[in-house]
């Protein structure tokens, strides 16, 4: 797994690539936690770009769920961009469909942070 971080229009975009398995989930947790900590109260807006993620295990999925909670506590929102590979089906199987907002288009995903939130 590799993670690149970009900021765009007040949204922190994490471009994640590869498989999120084993110890990757802890690494991902640390990265997300740092972004949430750095965000101003009420502005923890995080977009996980999963377009290049082929596979996530239950620990990885767990970290994404934990981020959802952490971001809401801080006042903010998390959304998923192009969840591919097995992530889409994991979200369905784990009954998390209504929890995560998912987008296929980056512009649309960024815009969503200014409609549904704040």
């Amino acid at each position: 797994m590799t993670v690149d971080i970009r900021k765009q229009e007040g949204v922190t975009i994490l471009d994640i690539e590869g498989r999120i398995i084993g110890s990757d989930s802890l690494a991902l947790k640390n990265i997300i936690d740092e972004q949430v900590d750095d965000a101003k109260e009420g502005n923890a807006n995080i977009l996980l770009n999963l377009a290049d993620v082929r596979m996530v295990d239950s620990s990885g999925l767990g970290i994404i769920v934990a981020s959802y909670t952490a971001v809401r506590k801080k006042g903010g929102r998390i959304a998923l961009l192009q969840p591919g590979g097995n992530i889409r089906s994991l979200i369905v199987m784990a009954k998390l469909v209504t929890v995560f907002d998912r987008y296929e288009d980056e512009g649309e995903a960024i815009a969503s942070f200014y409609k549904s939130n704040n």
Partner: protein
Amino acid sequence: MGSTTEQIIRLDLPSSIQQVYLLDTIILEILKEMDFDEETSELVSLAVIEAGTNAIKHGNKEDWSKHAHFEFIVHPDKLTVVVQDEGKGFEREEVADPLDPANLLKSSGRGLFLMEACMDSVTYNKSGTIVTMVKHKPLSDKQ
């Protein structure tokens, strides 16, 4: 003489979570050589990673000197994976259901559920230190 219908591959990994990458590489190569299709391979590899992670984390408590033992039994039409750890075991029935609304937003507890969803069968020995998982090749596959 060797049996002509099954081949057994055994693997012992030290109980470090880093070893999950090696496990991932190995199970994907075994599935490729067995001619499993890509979609089924993703399911089986996820189940094996979950079982291996549990053996390393919950069973052996990430003590490097303890090993997680894997047996991959390659049949012409199916793969059986046996995962054993050197820990205290657990009771399957006592594990909380991750689909219970109260648990949906928990950050863990989905591994066993996913193993059972991905494989054709998942059974635990009485003490909970050995899990045996079976996956048949989809019928549409070339045999």
